[in-house]
């Protein structure tokens, strides 16, 4: 089976690199993709969807040239193809209103402030990806090592 995709979006290459590096422990089970803009992310998702690949998680910065992170996540939230895709907002600069929009319109699952703690970020990713696997009815047995046991347990699968 193709690996589930995790897409990281940040316009600052150095920051993007740091996020992806922190997520490296997940690379064994997931495919990490990097995008430097919201539009790039949306067209990548389009491509991946055409190839039949699944997108489990999008981690995005908010303030970027062109479309903002919350805007992009809102669009993803409204697209039924990505209804199980989980979303993390990872930003150092979001106003009160941005945050409200992120929760109400984009349905963001987690909010991380820059600078983030890598262990917490990985734990959040694992838990969200586990929910994604369960929601989309995938076989979770092969990737038990990558999943959040607590979430599996609560769902009654373990």
């Amino acid at each position, binding site marked *: 089976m193709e690996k589930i995709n995790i897409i990281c979006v940040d316009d600052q290459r150095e920051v993007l*690199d740091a996020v992806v590096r922190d997520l490296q422990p997940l690379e064994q089970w997931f495919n990490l993709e990097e995008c430097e803009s919201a539009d790039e992310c949306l067209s990548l998702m389009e491509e991946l969807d055409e190839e039949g690949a699944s997108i489990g998680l999008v981690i995005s910065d908010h303030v970027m040239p062109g479309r903002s992170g919350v805007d992009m996540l809102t669009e993803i939230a409204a697209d039924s193809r990505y209804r199980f895709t989980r979303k993390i907002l990872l930003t150092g600069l979001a106003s009160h209103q941005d945050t409200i929009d992120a929760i109400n319109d984009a349905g963001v699952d987690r909010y991380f402030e820059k600078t983030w703690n890598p262990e917490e970020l990985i734990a959040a990713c694992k838990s969200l990806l586990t929910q994604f696997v369960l929601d989309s009815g995938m076989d979770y047995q092969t990737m038990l090592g990558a999943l959040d046991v607590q979430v599996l347990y609560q769902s009654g699968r373990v």
Partner: protein
Amino acid sequence: MFDSELVDSPAYQRIKQVYFGRADRHFTLKKGKTLLEQGEFNDKLYLILEGTIVGYQSIDGEPVEIFRSGPDMFIGLQSFFGRSHRSYSKVVAETECSMAYIELSTPAEDEYQYGSLIEQFNPVIVNALITRQLRSSHAALERQRTQKRLLQAEKMSTLGQLSAGLAHELNNSIGVLARKSEYISEFVADILNEREPKKFAFFKNGLDEGQRLNSLEVRQRTREFARKLNINKETAKLLAKMASSMDDASVLDKNVIKNLESVAQFWQLGVDFHDMQVAAKHATGIVKSVKILGGGSFERGEGVCVIDSIEQALSLLKSNLRAVQLDAQLRELPTIYGNLTELIQIWVNIIKNACDAMEQAATPSPSLRISTRLLPDAVKVKITDTGPGIPEKLQDKIFQPNFTTKKNGLQFGLGLGLSIVMRLVDSYNGRIVLNSVPGKTTFSVTLPIRERDGKN
């Protein structure tokens, strides 16, 4: 000055002619001469024909200016008509004055038609009263404004000192981080160079160049490598990233691919040091700008670089500009007479205003264009945004202090917005022109190159 309506009125013109027209009651008062001492006996009513007269009252031993009168204004109204016959102030000629007067003994002219002396002078007295009252309320208002400005200035200077202190502290910390990361990278480089020349080459490339391809290019090359070399995606991606700072031949060497994991680690380590240095440099730049704005001196001199000031303003506003497409075409300009901090303040306020306007209006793909031009005696900077524009009826108001259309009161304490810009540009004898339609708002600032030029 005297109410012009009254000056033009027949009643006043008659009084002036009838009572103050006689040459034998005209005299000249030399500049600096005292007409009346405070408390001195006075039985005359003076009319100023030319010059300026100032009245002082001694308050706590200090002379305080209480009125200032020019042509067609009267002196001694109070002591003459108020029957006190004592001057309540010391009256001094500020310039050479040509004066006319009447005395208590001067009889009313044409009493039958115009009434008694006091009746004839009534409009003049009332007018003088009103003029003085207006003057004192204007003075009170001015005092209030000055106080407000002082308070504001005090706030600014506190903020300035705070930010200068903050900038200093941050600068030290960033400096330590930058230097230590440099030491470590030098140390690693030396060891590698000695023991692992192959790995050193990869490390050095990462350190010098960083990752140069963008994410899209990396993805394309990853696919290309995976297909051509028949390798898995992770390996291809690593190769693609490294290929961004090294030539393909050395990256795609058979030995490299075989030992990819081990060499790639060193390339990545180099990139990490590269990124740390980029970040430190960026932070240092911002701190420097804050320091200049917060604790900068405001002395003007020759040799100020306008381009520098624009670049500093841009780096200060980096976070505001992150969502904005920036097109800065800064052509080389001669240096001008001025002060760097003030110039930065001008640009910061205009650019920040543009960013705020575009953000508030949720302008789609907001962009900002800055261009510079050299004129015969001046430099011109044009700053154009694609925001909603400034409605025509507000275009005059936006330069006034305390005028804002911003809903959120939170402002970065760099200034008072466009009123500061106006004041500064004015003080340079420069000009600021606003052109605004929806989707295109341009502020053009012209600053003279030499001190006394401009505004011609």
